[in-house]
């Protein structure tokens, strides 16, 4: 019975969106999808989509690595590392990513000899996202009760055992759903890398737009493309949330 109710609710929501879309389309005479152009440039669009997925996966790995370093800075007994973490995350999260991409790419990454926009852009995006990941790790770590740390001391457990058997499993359980949501944010954020000509989905759609001059089709495909990645991720996060909550 519950499943029927759920299916009915989903159907209602889908209908609302279809109606809303139909209303918007009916009110805009210029709205139409150029299927012929889509067919002609399907390779270009697929290539952009594929590149965004790759870029996102690489940025995910790099940002998780950075975030692990940042996280260890927060729990370090050295105050200097704690302050460095605070300063870094404040600066990174206090400025829009778009500004970081432009400023850091044209000044900082160039200063350290990175000329390739793909490497520079991925690095900047990873640094930015690593702050979100590190904050999530920090929250999960702080949620472990102080009593547990005292107990690890009393039981004289080796540090590696504490991390592997007690701290990490609790942190992973607490952070997985949020990390999945952050990953969806990371995927969307790759679009901003088109500002420095990183070849990814948005950049390829810009190319499609300039060749066909059919902006509406281009941007609708762009929206659908990102949704095909972010919606499954949202469902995955929802499923994980329920799974780890059990």
């Amino acid at each position: 019975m519950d499943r029927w109710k759920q299916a009915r609710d989903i159907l209602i929501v889908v209908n609302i969106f279809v109606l809303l879309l139909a209303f918007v389309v009916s009110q805009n005479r210029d709205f139409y999808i150029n299927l012929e152009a889509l067919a002609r440039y399907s390779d270009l669009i697929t290539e952009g989509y594929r590149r965004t997925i790759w870029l996102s996966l690489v940025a995910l790995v790099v940002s998780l690595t950075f975030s692990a370093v940042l996280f260890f800075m927060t729990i370090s007994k050295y105050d200097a590392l704690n302050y460095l973490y605070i300063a870094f995350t404040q600066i990174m999260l206090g400025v829009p990513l778009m500004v970081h991409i432009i400023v850091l790419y044209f000044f900082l990454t160039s200063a350290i000899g990175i000329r390739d926009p793909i490497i520079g852009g991925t690095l900047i995006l990873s640094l930015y996202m690593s702050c979100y990941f590190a904050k999530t790790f920090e929250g999960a770590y702080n949620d472990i009760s102080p009593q547990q740390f005292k107990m690890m001391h009393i039981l004289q457990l080796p540090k590696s055992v504490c991390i592997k058997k007690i701290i990490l499993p609790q942190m992973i359980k607490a952070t997985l759903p949020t990390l999945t949501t952050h990953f969806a944010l990371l995927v969307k954020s790759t679009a901003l890398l088109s500002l420095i000509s990183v070849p990814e989905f948005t950049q390829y759609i810009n190319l499609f737009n300039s060749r066909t001059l059919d902006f509406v089709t281009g941007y609708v495909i762009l929206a659908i493309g990102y949704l095909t990645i972010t919606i499954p991720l949202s469902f995955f996060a929802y499923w994980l949330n329920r799974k780890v909550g059990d």
Partner: protein
Amino acid sequence: MDIIINNFIKSFGKEKALNIQQLNLENIRTLAIVGPSGGGKSTLLKIIGTIEQADSGSLKLNNKEIVGLSEYKDYLKGVGYVFQHDNLFPNLTVMENITIHLIHTYKMAKIEAYTLAEKWLLKVGILEHKDKKLHQLSGGQAQRVAIVRALISGAHLLLLDEPTSALDPELAYEVMKTLIELKQEADIIIVTHELNFARKFADYYIFIEQGHVLSHGPIEQLFSCTDTRISTFVEKITFK
């Protein structure tokens, strides 16, 4: 156990949490630390358990100096500790919680550790819960698991920091019963507000208020003490 304390001071900021000039206790089996909240009882227990460090003075437990102790490993191998709550690691099962230190600190073979754990769980009547995690246990069961873990490694000293205060009376009774059954396993120091339980359980008491030891003696003396401050406290706690 023998406890000898001299010029012992522990401060938190400018506040002296403990200031004990002299205390000599000899041949005690079960010691109850009692007194009003915030008086320094738990702090004293934490110092004995090396969770907190004293500022100065001397505290000798069975001739072992605790103040300024830098190498805990051997000392802590003989000590078990049970907090008020949050004793167990929530991601581990009861069995894993009980054997984690046997395997990783005492380097016992897993099969040997599990066999020993099963014996202990059977002894305290919770063997059927061995594969459960913390959220599947009642508060009383969790505390009994914590007591087993504290004793299983052969600890000769068990430190109990208000082990029943977070439990409702029925569950607290389960834990107290277990403690009485296991009393002979080790010397015990318990911080508690359950004076009726302390009367049955302990053989000696120290009364701490505002960081000072106001009185100490065999447990029965606590209930016939003429000091107004102590007798008022006992009356309030036991509803006399």
